[in-house]
């Protein structure tokens, strides 16, 4: 064992973390090497001195200070709305609504692809393409298997023009029908999501307003502008994912402000 090997293992040796064989080897080296022995003694002195340090006695007033800190925190809690106090619960309440929306969005995308594929195949002759899409009805109708009641709507609500050959071509209605279900279900889900988010935002906004009242005017303006922009996107964006992102951002900003956090984008 060389000096470098011993030096690298000194802490482990002194803490009795080496195997018996390694400890013996280190000890044997220390017997023969003055420099390493001096190093080991220094390390042992450091360790011993640290362990012998007198305890740092907490000041008698510390408990009173802790009680004051707890009282202050509870006073702040009392000013907040239940929404702002239950961040984790808020997301637990919202999360179940986010997954079906994403699944529906994915299903809608799939259905559109199938429909576009079907249209493209039917356009030239109407015979060759039909044979290419026997699986389409099953694929497309499988996803919206739990549409809301009433979502199995009449052809009059189709967003695309009705197919004039619908009566002569049996597969066509079953291909178009899923898109109707998805559109309606998606709209219903979106409306339900919006309602949930609006309720959350309304409650959080009340708590955030209390924090905002203590800010400087430029900060209040920046905050208001940020909230207005997010609200516009959340209410008006056609894209489902963009709406969700905006709602989530809105809730997040309001929640952080309501909790007293100095949100970077509005506290410059």
């Amino acid at each position, binding site marked *: 064992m060389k000096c470098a090997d011993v030096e*690298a293992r000194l802490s482990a040796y002194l803490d009795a*973390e080496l195997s018996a064989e390694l400890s013996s080897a280190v000890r044997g080296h220390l017997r023969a090497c003055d420099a390493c022995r*001096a190093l080991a003694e220094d390390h*042992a*002195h450091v360790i011993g001195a640290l362990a012998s340090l007198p305890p*740092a006695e*907490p000041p008698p007033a510390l408990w009173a200070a802790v009680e004051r*800190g707890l009282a202050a925190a509870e006073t702040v809690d009392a000013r907040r709305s239940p929404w702002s106090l239950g961040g984790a619960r808020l997301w637990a309440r919202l999360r179940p609504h986010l997954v079906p929306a994403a699944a529906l969005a994915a299903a809608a995308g799939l259905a559109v692809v199938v429909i576009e594929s079907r249209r493209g195949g039917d356009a030239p002759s109407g015979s060759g393409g039909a044979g290419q899409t026997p699986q389409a009805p099953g694929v497309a109708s499988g996803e919206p298997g739990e549409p809301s009641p009433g979502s199995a709507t009449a052809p009059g609500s189709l967003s695309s023009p009705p197919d004039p050959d619908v009566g002569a071509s049996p597969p066509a209605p079953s291909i178009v029908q899923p898109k109707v279900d998805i559109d309606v279900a998606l709209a219903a889900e979106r409306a339900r999501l919006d309602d949930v988010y609006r309720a959350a935002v309304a409650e959080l906004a009340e708590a955030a307003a209390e924090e905002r009242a203590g800010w400087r005017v430029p900060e209040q303006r920046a905050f208001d502008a940020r909230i207005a922009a997010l609200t516009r996107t959340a209410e008006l964006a056609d894209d489902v994912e963009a709406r969700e992102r905006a709602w989530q951002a809105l809730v997040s900003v309001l929640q952080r402000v309501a909790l007293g956090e100095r949100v970077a984008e509005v506290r410059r």
Partner: protein
Amino acid sequence: MVRPRARPTAASGPEDALLIEACRRGEQRAMETLYHQYKRRVFGLVHRIVGAADAEEVAQDVFVRVFRGLGSFRGDAALGTWIYRLAVNASLSHVARRGRRGEVGDDELERVAAPEEARRDPRLSERVEAAMAQLPAGYRAILVLHDIEGLSHEECAAIMDCRVGTSKSQLHKARGRMRELLGPALAAERARGGGPVPASDDGGEGLA
């Protein structure tokens, strides 16, 4: 011959669960009991990481976090480990926010001069504390947890959220840095021919 020292083992108190439940219900006596059970360990840790000037403020913050966080404490770690983790995180965050303002400078080390007399340095504790103040906060934390509080590397790693190997290497580097900072004093100790300062077998309370 320089030999390994004995180390205390960490123990877990079965009464912690009852104490935690009582604290969650807001029972004053339980909260005071928990405070008194951990006040020296928390304050000692905080004191040696952030320094005397800010120790009370940070220790207060730690205990407020402890009592407000007990509701979400799931018992995955021992109560003591969890409290230490809060204390280390609060202390390191405080040091990071503060920067190097208020830390002991080289001048202070020089003021604690090496002793002339050939006997056990009566100011060794001061010298060690001053040397510790020269270390990066992370080194201070591992020295306090392992060498002063007597925790195992597994406990240190859990508290500092790092690997056991990292805890060991940090400790080795921290001790090496302490040896450099205490160089003259250690040379004097060696010249006196005294053995290393004995580590007390009951030096650490272990984790409850």
